[in-house]
């Protein structure tokens, strides 16, 4: 039992951190520009594929830096020549633009790298166990992923709170027009933030690719969950996104770990549900991947501004 709890916690935290890396960029973009970027997970996928191709020439570590930079540059271009053009037509048009972009990126990835998954793996020395607990290995790579996520979180916090650019971004989050009136180049700031957000997503892709899988469907499956994190966390709140990511990560892993069905849960609460009926039979493990969406709907009904957000979306 203890080992289950320990490993579920470790797994939940790891998954949560990966989610946070993905969603932190989206939170910045969303709160500043009001754009819920549907293609955000596609940039995550591009990060993984770029790192795979670059890694064949440079190795894992340089690719870890180069791939996000490339994707970030690509993201800036998308903002400059795509989103900015559409911006004049309102938020719905922007959302539709990113929706179409996700389609196109997914197809282009298939065109370049094929329809089957690619063999993007972590370097072999990282496959060794970092430690072994109750006979279960925990690989070095997983440790590295946690370390990178934490470093990124600290760097992001420093950037936003302690630098001049960070101050501008924070100001633009809440008082975009005022920042413009003060003579700052807000469009350029938008472009930078969009590119930066995409680069963060790509970083998540570089480490998420070997951890999960690098295949053309990787964006489509993770995309909606990232939205959930941003909305549940609350608009404009990185802290909220952080808690939401961890919450979803832990919730999913523990739902899987607990061996109980809906009937067990409800009957423990005093209800009388047939454990072999079609509803009672459903196990919590089955519901695990649905938890983000259940959470999303509940939050939007009962607390629309999210866990830590100040404004309603």
């Amino acid at each position, binding site marked *: 039992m203890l080992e289950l709890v320990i490993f579920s916690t470790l797994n939940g935290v790891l998954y949560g951190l990966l989610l946070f890396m993905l969603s932190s960029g989206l939170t910045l973009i969303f709160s500043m520009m009001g754009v819920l970027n549907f293609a955000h997970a596609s940039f995550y996928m591009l990060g993984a594929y770029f790192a795979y191709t670059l890694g064949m020439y440079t190795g894992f570590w340089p690719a870890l830096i180069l791939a996000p930079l490339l994707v970030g540059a690509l993201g800036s271009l998308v903002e400059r020549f795509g989103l900015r053009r559409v911006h004049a*037509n309102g938020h719905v048009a922007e*959302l539709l633009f990113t*929706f179409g*972009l996700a389609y196109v990126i997914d197809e282009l990835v298939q065109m370049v790298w094929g329809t089957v998954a690619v063999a993007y793996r972590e370097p072999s020395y990282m496959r060794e166990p970092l430690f072994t607990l109750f006979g279960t290995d925990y690989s070095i790579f997983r440790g590295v992923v946690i370390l990178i996520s934490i470093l990124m979180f600290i760097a992001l916090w420093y950037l936003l709170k302690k630098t001049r650019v960070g101050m501008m971004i924070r100001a633009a989050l809440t008082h975009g027009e005022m920042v413009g009136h003060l003579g700052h180049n807000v469009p350029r700031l938008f472009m930078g933030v969009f590119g930066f957000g995409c680069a963060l997503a790509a970083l998540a892709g570089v480490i998420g690719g070997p951890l999960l899988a690098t295949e053309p469907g990787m964006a489509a499956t993770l995309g909606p969950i990232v939205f959930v994190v941003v909305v549940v966390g609350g608009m404009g709140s990185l802290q909220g996104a952080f808690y939401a990511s961890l919450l979803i990560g832990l919730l999913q892993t523990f739902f899987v770990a607990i061996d109980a069905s809906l009937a067990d849960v409800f009957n423990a609460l005093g209800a009388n549900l047939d454990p072999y009926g079609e509803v009672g039979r459903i196990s919590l493990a*089955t519901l695990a991947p649905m938890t983000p969406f*259940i959470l999303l*709907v509940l939050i*939007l009904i009962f607390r629309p501004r999210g866990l830590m957000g100040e404004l*309603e979306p």
Partner: protein
Amino acid sequence: MSQDIIAPMQRTKSRTSLRGLVAWVVFAAVLLLLPVFFQGNSTAFTLLNVIGINIVFALSYNMLLGQGGMLSFGHAVFFGLGSYAAMHAMIAIDEASYAGEGFWAHVPVLGMPLVGMIAGGLVALVLGWPFCRRAGTAFAMITLGLGEMVAAAGQMFPSLFGGEAGIYGNRMVGPQWFGLELAQSSDVYWFIAFWTFAGVFAMWAFTRTPLGRMSNAVRDNPDRLQFIGYPPRNVRFMIFIAAGSFGGLAGGMAAVNYEIITPEALGLIPSGLALLMAAVGGLGVFYGPIVGAVVVTLMNSMLSDYTDASILYVGLVFLAIVMFAPRGLGGGIEQVRVAWRDGDLGRRLPGWLSGAVAVGLIIVGLVVLIELAFQATHGSDEFAHVFGVDFDAAGPWGWLTVVVLLVAGGLIKRATNKLREDQA
């Protein structure tokens, strides 16, 4: 250009009722004459039937997005559940007419869309209230969550949804009306045509009701609506129910046409399809989604015969429309129509035509480029076949053609812009 894309085209004069009538007569005549064109061609009828279903689906979606300003990612829930209800009813008819008694034995399959409509409306009625508090992103996200949840539930309750294999029925049961046997797709066409016409007319009539007008108000300025005493949430809720009903109507049509329904029909992909059709056709014009449904359905079903990159083309068309023609194809048609009515067409036509030539050249150039790239990366065929011409990705000529086409298109486009500026 710098207006919100879902704002309607400005109307200079209000249409006289006679003109409105002409449009409907033409629509009915087209529906009646289509079978003459395609006599004996069942593929055409199959496609027409799909198009009919998608027209109603896309229009019902546009009640939310185009008219009510509510961006939904879960509209397929109503389509799918409507379809399931109709299918269960069809199975009931089958069983009842076997026994020869009971209520269902007297219900014709032709009425199934109504069953779907009621089911869609009821689902929206039950689920909708908490969703309609806000429009915008909150609504988009909550419908996304709803769609994912219902789609997952579809796999979890096999007794209702039939598991992965879905549930299936037979449309040739129950009392036969108007001699329609519904055996062939050409028979089904009359059924689809009737309900398409009825659905389109009802949705158009809806825009003329006070509620329909109010839905535009809640889109444009919910605060003001609140001030004059109509809570926006109530208005949104009613639109939601109406859109759900018509989504269910389309689902009921689909149940009869396909005779099978699977849980996939509830998910994000068909919801995205509705959005795609409505946006390609144009959100601001009533008939926009009709155009969109025709174009997108044909692209979906026919394009993959000619190229492996068909989905890429659909995505690019969508992206191009969002970026360069935010009013969609319907908006373009409307522009021409308005110019023609105002006697302005002669003056503006040269600019439009040369613009169309430019766009055409650029599109052809891009198509050749994509096919060449596809051939270079996949290389199962020796040549990229484009419009009956073979291009060899290994040689320079194909790529040169691309450059020539794109440059020519760009130059004409620039000249066109200048022409239009001079006119203005």
